[in-house]
Structures are given as C-alpha cells and as structure tokens.
C-alpha cells in the first residue's frame, strides 16, 4: 500500500477508542464504588432493548414533583433532594444551577410537564437484568444510586424486598 504512512495513524484512532472505552468504564466503576450514594423508592415494568437485552423501566418517587417553576419542555432542571427516613425525596426543583458551595444533594434532570406537575427523568430509568428471566417478583423495590461529582445519578444496585438484585 502506497499510503502506509497515513494508514499508520489508524493505530492512534484505535488507541483512542480503547482508551475511551476503558476510561469511560473506569469512571463509572469509580462512581459506582466511591461516589456518595442515596436510596430511592421505585416501581418497574419490563420491556427489551435490541442492543442491550432485557431491562426494567424504573419509575421513581422523585420522577414526579411539584414545582414552583415552569421550565421549558425537556429542559435541564436541578433537583434538590433531601433525606426522608431511609430514602431521598425531592425537596425542590430549580432552573438555576445551585451555587458551587451548596452542600445540599442536588442532581441534573430533564423536565417535562408544567407548573405543579413536573415529570423528571434522570437517566436512571432503565435497569438491565439477566436475559430471559423477566422481571423478578417482589413487594418493595429500591434503587441505590450514586451521585457523581458532576451531580448526575447513576444506578449502583437494586434492592428487592431488602435483598440485593441480581
């Protein structure tokens, strides 16, 4: 091949792909194991993702909130959470990012709905389960979620009737 010198650059691209995959996975491993965690009350249904297999759609108590603001449809909002018993619940929803020194637990969410009846999505609405086993039976479902340094929620683990799943 005449352009072998140019073709060699493909190894830089491959290295970028590998470094990206490993560092992305590493970051989420770190968030899962080290970032502060909160527990959330949850309800599931179970569809399927073509690429990634079976999953439960999770609907949280913090997915619905009453808010004194009227954010644009599908706009970013900031949800301030507060502990209530063993779980975290919505304290308030604001459209202005909390100040840097704010020590409250707050996370990013996408809002839809209108004043008073907001539906919030956090990017933790799917939990991938072992294929073919379907949704397990349970009475209570809780999600333990990590709050990343960038104030995003990531699922750490699931608790069914107080036991870890899967």
């Amino acid at each position, binding site marked *: 091949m005449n352009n072998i010198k140019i073709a060699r650059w*493909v190894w830089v691209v491959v290295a970028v792909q590998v470094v990206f995959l490993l560092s992305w996975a590493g970051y989420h491993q770190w968030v899962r194991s080290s970032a502060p965690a909160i527990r959330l009350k949850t309800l599931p249904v179970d569809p399927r993702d073509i690429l990634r297999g079976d999953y439960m759609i999770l609907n949280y108590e913090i997915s619905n909130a009453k808010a004194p603001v009227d954010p644009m449809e599908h706009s970013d909002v900031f949800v301030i959470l507060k502990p209530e018993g063993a779980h975290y619940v919505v304290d308030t929803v604001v459209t202005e990012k909390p100040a840097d020194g704010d020590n409250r637990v707050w996370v990013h969410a996408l809002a839809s709905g209108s004043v008073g009846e907001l539906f919030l999505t956090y990017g933790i609405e799917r939990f991938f389960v072992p294929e073919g086993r379907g949704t397990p039976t349970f009475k209570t479902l809780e999600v333990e979620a990590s709050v990343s340094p960038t104030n995003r929620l990531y699922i750490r683990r699931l608790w069914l009737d107080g036991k870890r799943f899967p």
Partner: protein
Amino acid sequence: MKSFEERLRSESVAWVETGVVTSAQRQALLERHPVEAGGGGRFVAILGAVGGGLLLAGVCLLVSANWQEIGDWVKIGGLVALLMGAYVAGWKLKISPGNYEKTGDAFFMLGAGLLMAGIALVSQIFHLNSRPATGVLVWWLGIVTVPWLVKSKGAQAVSLIALLIWLGMEFAIRGSWLSLAEQGRGFEDGVRLVAIMTALGLAIWLAGLALRETRHELFAALHEKWGALIVCSGLYVIGFLRHFWSWQNNEYAVRLLPVILVAGLIVAAAVLAWRASRREVLAMAPWLVAALIPVGAVLFGWNVGDHGWLWSAWSWTALFVLNVFMIRTGLATGREGWVNLGMAFIALNIVTRYFDLFGTMLEGGVFFVISGVIVLTLGIYLERKRRKWLGAMRAEKEVA
C-alpha cells in the same frame, strides 16, 4: 466436485480440438494452474472452515451460557481485546503485508462495529441510559477517520450507518437540538423523519459524485449507491402520503434548524460534486430537484387542499423519472448499481401503485389473477431487460 484445475485439465482437451487454443497455449495454462496431489489445500481449507466455525460457535455458546457469571471487567476486557484483534487482523490482511485485501476490509468493518458493541456493553453494565443518541454520536466520531486512513469500504459503510442512525435519532428525539418537532410538542409523525432522511440521502449521493476522480474515489460508488437507495426508498414511502394526510398541515411544520443543516450538507456536497463532474450534476439536477419538492411539501406542511394526492402522485412520478435517469446514466457510465437500483424501484413502484390505486376496485379472485399476471409479466420483462443491458455493459467494458 472437481476443482477448477481439474476441470481445466479435462475441458481444455476439447478447446485444442476445436481450435480455441493451441496445444502450446493449453500447456501454458496447465502449468499456470497445476493440479495439486491429493486435492491441494481444498480439503484442509474445508476442514479449517468447518473446524473454525464449530470452535467459534462453541466459544459463543460458552460465553452466552456463562454471561451472568463473567465479571464486568472481564467482559469489557474481552471486548477491547476483540476490537484490537479485529484491527490487527485488518492491518495484517489489508495493509501490511496485505495479501487478502477484502478479508482485511471485513476485519476493519468488524472493528468499527465492535466500538458500538463496547459502548452498548459499558452502558448495559453501568445502566447508563440518559441519552442513547450521544452513544451513537460517540461511536461515529470514534470510527469516522478509520475508513479514510486505511481505505476500507466496509468501515466506511459502518461509519455511514452510524451517521445516519445518529442524525435519525437526533431528528426524532424530543428536546434534541436537532429535533424536527417544536419545543414541547411530541414527534409521532414518522413521515417527516422519512422526508428529512430522504434529503440527507441526496447529500450522500452528491458526496459520492464529489469523490469521483479524487484519491478517495474508492468510496464514491458506495456513497452514490447508498444515497440513491435512501432517496428512492424515501420517495417510495412519501408516495403513501395521501393515506395519512390528516396530520399534514402548516401548523405542524418542522423546526428550521435540522432542515437548514441538511440543506447545508446538500449544498456543500453539490458544490464539491460540481467541481468534480459538472456534466453529471447538471444531468441529475432536474430529477433531484423534482424529488425534493414532495420532501419539502412534507417538511413544511404545504397543503393544497387535496388530502395529499398531489404530493403522493408527484412522489410516484419523481421516483419513476429518477429511476429512468439512473438506468440511463448507469448504462452510459458503467455503474451497474444504478441500473439495478433503478430497475428494482421501477418494478416496486409500478406494482405498489397498482395495488395502491386499483386494489380496492376489483373482486378478490379477479384481483389476485390480474395481480399475479402483472407481477409475473413485469418481473420477467424487467429482469430480461436488466440482464441484457448489464451483459452489453460488461461486454463493452471488456472490449475497452
């Protein structure tokens, strides 16, 4: 079954007898293709293929049976190893030493696909699902340079798929910066997505023309064929517009930003194609503009009060004349893909319009008899034509 070498040895006797080749020429041919003792490497190759296939199937079964027990990082590490292995195999087979270019191309294609598998795997393991379109964008960005560096058509095909999926998702997602739907409005209307993807297909088609006679000419035919396929498929679907016209009106016109982006891509590709081949762009322009009119009608909700009949009929006609142009140009320039696509869509368009327009007018039995005769006659006629034209084209190429 005899090997090529064995058949050459036996059949060439008759060639000498009928004067097709001289005895000396036969001898030269036989020396060039000697029959290897014991069937040469064929048996080994068959064993290798069967054994390799069994081994691969076994590994896949083992991995899938134990998938839940495999650690997360073993899965990720295995996928990274597969990804690197695919690129290493691609490099060895296609580039250095490069004795099996097509197989090497397939490995580069596999490597490009495995990056998406890696992204899906990591997002599955860590339950990441905030924005799937961003995952596809990362996939496309990760592989977009690979085909241009190693001249891999397979990888370019994967890259085009990634780009199309990403843009399709962005156009369809609520709240996306490229969403076709206005802020706060749902996007349930698939025909507008089809329309903008049709326009995008046109940009890809023109990009193929622009690549002709450049150092990346290798990708020209791929872009042209994919672009033509998307445009023809889009027009075919828009041909059904009259059936779901009730949703089409000015109030539901799409957002301008995605339209401007795609229009910009079309103009950029057209300018580059113009510089590469002014004659072809001029020849294509009227048919492509005709194809864009129903696309514009869908995107902007142009309502002429006829429940979509005008734009449906326009799409049928635009598709037909575009196909005729593709066949003519394909025959004149030796592009078999254009001829095949043109013939296929002419047949599909005629048969579909027959069912679409007359399907409800005839009694069940009569309808099926007439339909069968039409489909058979049209199919046989078009296939004969296609073979005749392609045969003539290939003969011309051989003479040239």
